[in-house]
């Protein structure tokens, strides 16, 4: 039965165990006929994209694990069908003997998951640790090394309940490539800030903060917490108006442009109304 990877960045602590375990397995170990050794550095058959989001003091770091998507319609296979094959379990393998000299494979992957080993003159990528699966292991090294089930590997049926919520790394390509790696909770954008009564030098607790998506008109609301903070998580990359309303204070409106990055709007000072 066809296997798949399910990756959940919300369960990722950014420890890089997956990347290290992959290197531990494949650098200086020859697993022919599945894979030749990976170069010691510079290649990431599984890698982590880390991104610092927001600004002081509303800062988060997101980690997104990336690897070969083991596509059903793999672009690499199209480019070089003689060197790439799919196993019965769905894992896409570059045959190291047949891929010798096929530099075009490294260019073919839209996910950047194929690397060219200059020393061995061969294109390489994640094998799903097929050599271990064939030797009785149930999961690849990266999955074994994850403490949080942020990377899982198994039969599609095991993940049936979650697949409805799953997304793809490159949604525009998903239909064409049919990746066997899916993602839960891919990070979107956040808007955060703090509301303060400047004159009283107090945070404002329980203020209503409204976020209006200027393109869709969608409205989200939050109340400021015990620290005067508000967080809107997993919102669209769009332009917004943000309204702050609290009893006895003048309403404030600020524009928030989330197109490029997450935004900490900072401290929003509110002032008493004269009513």
């Amino acid at each position, binding site marked *: 039965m066809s296997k798949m990877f399910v990756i959940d960045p919300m369960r990722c602590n950014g*420890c*890089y165990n997956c990347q290290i375990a992959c290197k531990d397995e494949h650098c200086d170990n020859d697993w022919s006929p599945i894979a030749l050794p990976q170069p010691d550095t*510079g290649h990431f058959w599984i890698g982590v994209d*880390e991104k*610092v989001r927001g600004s*002081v003091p509303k800062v*988060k770091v997101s980690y997104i694990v990336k690897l070969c998507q083991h596509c059903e319609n793999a672009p690499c296979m199209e480019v070089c069908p003689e060197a790439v094959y799919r196993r019965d379990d769905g894992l896409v393998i570059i045959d190291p003997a047949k891929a010798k000299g096929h530099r075009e494979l490294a260019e073919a992957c839209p996910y950047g998951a194929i690397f060219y080993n200059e020393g061995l003159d061969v294109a390489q990528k994640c094998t799903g640790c097929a050599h271990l699966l064939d030797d009785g292991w149930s999961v690849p090294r990266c999955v*074994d090394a994850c403490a949080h089930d942020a990377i899982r590997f198994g039969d599609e049926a095991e993940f049936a309940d979650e697949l409805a919520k799953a997304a793809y790394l490159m949604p525009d390509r998903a239909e064409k490539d049919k990746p066997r790696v899916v993602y839960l909770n891919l990070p979107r954008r956040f808007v955060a800030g703090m509301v303060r009564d400047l004159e009283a030098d107090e*945070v404002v607790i329980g203020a209503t903060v409204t976020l209006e998506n200027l393109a869709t008109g969608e409205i989200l609301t939050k109340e400021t917490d*015990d620290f005067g903070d508000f967080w809107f998580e997993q919102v669209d990359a769009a332009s917004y108006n943000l309204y702050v309303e609290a009893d006895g204070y003048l309403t404030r409106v600020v524009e928030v442009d989330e197109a490029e990055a997450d935004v900490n709007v900072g401290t929003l000072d509110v002032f008493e109304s004269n009513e």
Partner: protein
Amino acid sequence: MGKAKGRPIIKGMGFCASAIGANVCSVDVAEDESKILRLRPFHVDEGYDSEHFNTWKIEARGHTFEPGSKVVSGPLSYSYKKRVYSKNRILYPLKRVDWDPQGERNPQNRGKSKYVRISWDEATQIIAEEIKRVHDAYGPLSILVQGDGHGETKFVHGTHGCQTRMLGLVGDYTLQARQPDSWEGWYWGAKHIWGMDPLGQQNLQNNIIKDISENGDAVLFWGADPETTPWGWGGMMASRLCFWFSEIGVKQIHISPDVNYANAVHADKWIPVLPNTDAALQLAIAYTWLSEGTYDWDYLDSHAIGFDNFAYYVMGGEDGIPKTPKWAEQKCGVPSCTIKALARYWAKHAVSIAHCNGGSFIRSCFAHEPARLEAALLGMQGLGKPGANQFKFIEWSLFGMKSVTPLPPSVEIPSCSTAFRGRQYSVRPSIIPKTMIPQAITNPPVQWYGHIAAGLPREDQFVGPLTFPLEGKERIHMIWSDAPCWETCWNGGNEMQDALRHESIEFLLIQHPWMENDCLFADILLPINTKLEEEDIGTDSDNGMWNVIYYEQRAIEPLGESKSDLEAVEEVAKKLEQFGGIYEDLHSRMMDGGKTVADFIQAGFENTGAASAITFEEFKERQYYPFPTMQGWEDLPAGMIQFYEEPERYPLTTPSGKLEYYSTALADVFPDDEIRGPIPKWIEEGDGHEERIGSKRAVDYPFLIVSNHPRWRVHANLDDVTWLREIPTCKVTGPDGYAYEPLWINPLDAGKLGLKTGDVAKIYNERGGVLGGILVTERIMPGVVYQDHGARVDSIVTGVGGLDRGGANNLIAPSATTSKNAHGEVTSGFLVNVEKVDVFELAKQYPEAFERTYDPASGVVVDEFIVERG
């Protein structure tokens, strides 16, 4: 079994060293024994049925937390193959080219001159003759043993202090004290308000995770990073607990200058605070509670003494300065409105405080004050009530104490102490505090209070003054170190570089697996192997899941001519026997009457309860024994609940048995100490420290540095691991291709200084400078720079006023200790300036340093330092 799987053995890949095992790992060895295939998580259920375990479960708020059976360590353990096969391994005994024990010793050239290969026979003959000569000329106490600190955890083979077993039999030695370095502020400060021997942190932590799960509203992570510090000592359970708190809605509030790695993924709230200014923030919280009447007066009445004195100080009665949130804002950088919000939130909720040791909070000048104030605040909100304790994400079985595990405990904390051949004693008649080594070498005598050993009771701090050298004895003339990282791990490393070159040091012997840090100052270097090359026994009682004892088979043959720490000392012992007299039969004596490694492994096993469950042969066959969960663990009193409910029946270990907001003992013993006085205070400057943003020095050095336990090292360990170094926050490649230690700076400061990511900058003060690779990031607050400690030294100019390329910022940390009667290290929260450098100009200025043989993937390589290889 297939070829891919290999032959599985077990190794403890923790880094505490000295018989405190952790990070149990499976290691697969190639079937032809030629190499290590892989290091991977240990699955505790592979060799024992599920009925064996009595699996625990915490249920709270509709969720369930269970230990599972996969024990996951961190990337520091799983990348260790690169450390074993490092290009920097010392593979043969080496002698410094211009050190001639029969002629010129050229101490001034240590750190500069190179090495030649010699044989084990020649090396141990020289060492034996030098020991004999020093014994005869100066007496045995002139040999300083540096045999402590962290590193690989071995039992029979050390790691540290094997030489004490031998030197102790031939007239003793002077011991570098095993400083309470992970706990400085708590040790020197918190003990005086709440006792809590041996370390000053809350020592009753049973069932605190269950308690917080059921009753807690929030946890304050005060400088704590559960995603970094525990990696060397316990693995991923700390991380799992943070996810668990998120799952059940326990608020995680981080208070620190940086977005540390736990904050980055788990925090619900970050309160940035300037390094080592927590005391101001804490006092303003106390002020808010006092002025608003939102503290537990009844509790203090029955559980504390001296609170009125403390309140008088906080409200400004003593010095005319009320410790208001506005006052604190100027000191600590936290907006006063946020201080008040935090104080009010805390007063209304069940709040615990979590730690992982280390960082500015506890390793800066006057660190005893924030540590004491933390206990003071916990007391004001009813310390010990449900959901309100202090606990740790690390050291869950420290010193074998059953009371410090906050998770459901196993039936036993196994101790293989009978197998241990490392450092024999923590206190000797002749000792030197680790923080005072440079002065003790260059300018004896030195004086201090207490025996400065982690684990001693509070009262020991009042013993003294103690002196080195002992009356009538000689100064240090020989050093034997197996922990050669002083300069990048301690206070004022540049001063240590000068000390190691001092003319009084006639012989500097170092044994170590890798050519790094203090090794470059050695006269003789002995090649040591890694634990993958040794047979041993181990324990792991710090993974938070299952306590385990395991048999460590040898994975591979020793590389080169390397030997274990124990074996190296054995070779010296055998050579010393030629002198007869006190040296007669020395080897057999140091091995407790000729015992072997196998004997000690068996003795270690038999010291544990595993021996009553399985035979030693079965143990070796199955390779491990896991201890089930204790029956009835749910009934262990949670945290400080007994003190909370019955303070008279369950007193603290303070003189009064209560929380001492006014420490009667400090008042009695050190009546003139204004820096660590009876009441915890904000200390601006004093005892040799001017490290505040309001200090005069801040005109020239306006930034405070925060230097944590490193994310991608354990202190000085692992800096050359290629797989770690390519992780973006591990190293920053400069324009010259050199991988620099990252230096985080906020975009606001970077803009002012014209710095961008990838630039190289120098941080510096009067004590010298170190380089760093700039990371412009919102993960650090303005006015502060962040650089982990422990980077591998790569000196451009050595000694005080020097310059280091590696980014080993301990070199420029203050030499003065915590305060005059508290002898802790000060290695974070000090002033520096930041300046962009042109590395190509520097290379022209210092061609020798910049032309060292260098591999960007692993750093400077050992060949650079060797002039001949046979």
